[in-house]
C-alpha cells in the first residue's frame, strides 16, 4: 500500500495518459497541417523528474557541493549547462519536412532519456543551425527581473514560452506554455522572447510553411533561491 502511495502519481498517470494518447490518435489525421512533432517524447523526458524520485512534491536531491551555484534540477537529457547559459541539445530527432501522421502517440510515460542520433539530413542541419542562432540571440538579451518585488522574492523556476514566427523572422505571437509559478519570471520570459530579433528562415528550411511555432525553456536560477 505504501509503495502504491509513494508512486501514486505514476499509478494515477497511467490511465489518464492512455486516455490522452487515445485522444491524440483521434485528433491527428492526415491533412495539410504539419504533424505534431515526433520529438515530443524527448520533451516529456526532458521535463520529467528522475525516475528515482517518484513522488516528492519538492525539488529533488541537491547536487554535491562541487557545483555550489547549481540548483537541484531534474536530470536533463542534454549535457550539463555551460555557465554562459549555452545549452547544446542533441540534434532533434529527424523530422520529415512533409506532413505525415505520427508513427506512434507522441505521449509516452516517462522513460529514460534516449535522444535519437542525428541522421545526415540537410533539413535537420539547417534546423539545428537556425535554432542555435535563435538561442544565441536570446542568450544575449535574457534578463533576470529587477525591482523591489524581484529583490524581495528572488524567484527561480523554469518557463516554457511558445512563439510564432513567420518566414521573415517576424514575431507574430507568443505566450506562456508552461508557467514557472512566478508572475515575475513568466513576465520576464515573455519579455525576453518579445524583444528578440529573429533571423528569417532559410529558403530551404520548412519550405511551404508561412509560419512556424517554436518553444523555448527559460530557466531562471538564483543562488539559494
Amino acid at each position: 500500500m505504501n509503495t502504491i502511495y509513494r508512486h501514486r502519481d505514476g499509478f494515477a498517470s497511467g490511465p489518464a495518459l492512455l486516455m490522452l494518447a487515445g485522444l491524440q490518435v483521434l485528433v491527428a489525421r492526415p491533412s495539410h497541417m504539419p504533424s505534431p512533432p515526433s520529438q515530443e517524447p524527448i520533451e516529456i523526458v526532458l521535463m520529467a523528474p528522475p525516475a528515482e524520485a517518484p513522488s516528492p512534491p519538492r525539488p529533488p536531491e541537491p547536487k554535491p557541493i562541487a557545483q555550489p551555484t547549481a540548483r537541484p534540477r531534474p536530470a536533463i537529457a542534454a549535457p550539463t549547462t555551460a555557465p554562459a547559459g549555452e545549452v547544446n541539445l542533441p540534434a532533434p530527432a529527424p523530422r520529415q519536412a512533409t506532413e505525415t501522421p505520427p508513427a506512434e502517440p507522441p505521449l509516452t510515460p516517462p522513460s529514460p532519456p534516449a535522444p535519437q542520433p542525428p541522421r545526415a539530413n540537410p533539413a535537420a542541419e539547417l534546423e539545428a543551425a537556425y535554432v542555435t542562432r535563435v538561442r544565441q540571440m536570446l542568450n544575449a538579451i535574457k534578463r533576470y527581473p529587477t525591482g523591489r518585488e524581484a529583490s524581495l522574492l528572488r524567484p527561480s523556476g523554469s518557463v516554457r514560452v511558445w512563439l510564432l514566427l513567420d518566414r521573415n523572422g517576424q514575431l507574430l505571437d507568443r505566450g506562456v506554455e508552461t508557467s514557472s509559478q512566478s508572475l515575475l519570471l513568466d513576465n520576464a520570459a515573455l519579455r525576453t522572447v518579445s524583444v528578440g530579433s529573429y533571423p528569417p528562415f532559410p529558403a530551404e528550411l520548412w519550405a511551404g510553411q508561412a509560419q512556424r511555432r517554436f518553444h523555448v525553456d527559460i530557466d531562471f536560477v538564483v543562488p539559494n533561491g
Partner: protein
Amino acid sequence: MQFVRKPLFIAVTLALPSLVLAQGSTAIGQITVEGQPVAAGAGLMIQEEAPKARSTATQAHLSTQMPTASPYQGIRLLPGVNAHSTDATGLFGGSLTVRGFNSDQMGFTIDGAPVNDSGNYAVYPQEYVDLENLEEIFITQGATDLDAPHVGAVGGNIGIISSNPTDQRRFRLAQTLGDKGLSRTFVRADSGRFNENATRLYASYSKSMVDKWRGEGEADRDHVDAKIVHDLGRGSRLSAGVVYNFAENNFYRNITKAQYAANGRSYDYDTVFGGRVTPVAGTAQNESSLTNYYNLQWNPFENYIATFKANLQLDDKTRLDIEPYYWYGDGSGGFGTTLNEANAFNAGVYGAAAKDLNGDGDTLDRVLFWRTSYTHTTRPGINLKLTHLLGNHKLAAGLWYERAEHRQTQPFVAVGADGKPLDLWAGSHLVTGPNGKVLQGRDQLTISTGYQLYLEDQISLLADRLNLSVGVRLPAIERDGKNYANNTAGNTTDYSVAKTYRDTLPQAGMRYRLSDTSSVFANVAKNFRAPQNFVLYEANQAGRSRNLEAETSTNLDVGFRHQSDKLNLSGTIYWVDFQNRMAQVRDPDGTSRNYNAGDVRTKGFELEAGAKVAASWGLYGSLSYTDAKQKSNFTTATSANVPVTLPTSGKIFVDSPKWMAGLALRYDAGPWFGGVQAKFSDKRYATLMNDEEIDGYVTVDANLGYRLAHVGMMKNARIQLNVLNLLDEKYLAQITSTRVNAVAYNGLAAGVPNYAPGAARFTSLTFTADF
C-alpha cells in the same frame, strides 16, 4: 520557486496545445538566466530594468569588504551616495546623504520591514545585519517605491535583502583579526534541505569587538541571524527570519574645525579620569571638568526584527503576499553631564528645586552624572499585497499597517568612582527628585499608527518594448502623543496631543526598449515625510500655532541604459523639488522649534558603468553631480529675539558635494582574488550660509584573498586581507551637526558645526572555512 514537474501535469499541458493547434513546434532549447551575474560590474551593478533610478550592491561586492562593514559602507561606491563610517570597521555607524537628502529622510527596509526609528526616522545601520548573510543592498536614489512601507521617505529608499539558507548542509566559521584589537568571530550553521526537500534553515552568531581608532573606548557587538524557508510547492513559499543585535559601544567625540586644526584627527574624549571630587559639606564641589571622560559616553542598544512571509501563488496569474513583522528596540545614547544641586529640578514636578545629590549635606555642588536619552520601541506591523495579471496588465494592490509604541525618557544615572555609569541600561542608580520621582529630561509615549494603501498597474505595450508603471500610494500616520510631567520647560505637566498626517502620492514610470541592448526610462514620483514625533512635544503647544506641514518632494528621473555581456551602462538626469523642509528656528519667545523653512531644488546626474575587461577582471565606475540649491531665505531670531533673515536663497545645501566618483577594480581567478576601490568627493558646506566648508578627499581601499584547496572536512577555505584608507588620507568625513551660519550675521551669533574625521588606515585579516 522551482516548478514541480509531475508527469501527469506535463502530459496534459503538452498535449493540450497540440490538440488545439495540431501543428509542429520546434524546440529552441534551454536558456539559463542567472540572477545578478557578476561579470560586468564587479558586483556593484546588475542589469537593471526598473523604470526609475536604481542601483544595487550585490553579495559579490559585499563579500570583498571587511566582514564587520555596515550597509553604508556596502553602498558607498554607488552613484549619488555620500556615505561615511565613523571608523573603518563600520561597527560605530556613520552618516549618509543622497541627492541632498539625509539618511533620516530616506526609507530603510530589511526584507521588506521598515527599520527607520518610528519617531524621528533615524537609521543605525550597524545594528541591523551581518554582511555575509546579505544577498544585496539596493537603493532608489530619488523615487520611493510604491509598495514600500514608509511615511518618512522623502528622498527615496534603501532595501537590505538577506540571503536564503543554502541547499546543502554547511557549517561556516570565520575569524577576523585586525588593527585596534579587532576580533570578530562568526559561525553559521545551515541545515540544508530536509522535510522532502521543502524546508531549510540557518542560524548564525557573530561577536565583534574593536577599540576606537582615536581616543579610548570600544565597540562590543553580539549579533544573531536566523532564517527558515519552507516551499509549499507550485510557487508558494513560507519564510521567517529574525535579526538580533546587542551592542555596547562608546561614542566618538564630534569635533569642530578649530579643534581639528589644533589637535589633528586623533582628538577625542579625555582618556584619563580625573577622579570624583570628594563631597565636603559647606563647600561647593564642581565636577564639570570630568564630563568629557570617554567612559561616560555610551551607546548601549538592543534590537531585533522578526519578519514572517507567506508568498502564496493562488493561481497562474495571482499572488498574495502576507508579511507581518515585529520590531523591538531598547537602549540609549548617553553623555557625561553635571547637575547643579541648587536648581536641578523643576519644583512643580519634583517637589522642590534643590536636592543634595552627592550626600555631603549641602546643595552647592555640581555633581557628575550620565544623562542618557533612552528609547524603548515595540512595533508590530503587516504588509499585504495582491498581484494579478490581466492581459498585458500587472495589477497590484497593497496595504501596510503598523502600530509603534515608542517610549522616550531621559534619566540621569549615577557614576562610579572609576568614571563609568553604574548602570548602562538605566534600570537602577537613577537620580530622583526631592519628592522621590525619577528625574527625566523628557518623558513621552508616542503611539504612531502608520498605514498605507497603494495601487499599481504595470502595463506592457508594443510587444513588451514599452513598459508603463502607474500607481498611487496613500500613506498616513496618526501620532498619539502623551507627555508625562518632566523636567523640560513647557513639558512640566501631563498632557496629550494628537496629529495625523497623510498625503496622496502618485508615481508614473516608463521604460522603452530601443534595441536589444539599450533602453530609456523616465519616472516622476511624489514623496512625503511626516514631521517627526518630537514636534508634538515642542514647548508651548497651546497658543503659538504652527502650520507644520509634511515635507514633500517631487522627483523626476530620465535615464538611459545599455546592457550587454561585456558592458553595462546606466545614466540618469534628475530634478528634485523639495518643499517644506523642516528646520529648527528660534521663535520670538526665545525657544527653538521646528518650522517649515523653505524649499530646496536639486538637479544633477548619476552615471555608472560596469565592464568585464578580461576573463577575470571586472571594473566598475560611478560619477555623480549634485546641484542642491536652497530656494528660500532663512528667517529666525537672534538671542535678543530680534527677527533676522539670512540670504540663503541660491546657496548650496549642506552636506551635498557637487561631484562624487567611485571606482572598483576586481580580480577573481583560480585561487587568488582581490580588488581596489576608490571614492572621490568634492568639498561640502556645513552651513546654510555656505560660510564654512570641508575639503574634498580621495580614499582608497584594497583587498586581497587566497582560496585554499579542500583539506579533509574543511572546504572553501579562504584568507582575505582588507586595508581601508590605504593612503591614510587625513580628512573630515562626517558633518555631524550642520548650522545656519558659521559667521555672525546681523546680530545672529555664529554657530559651530561639528564633524567626525575619517578613520586612519586600518588592516584586517579574515579566515573563513566551511565544514
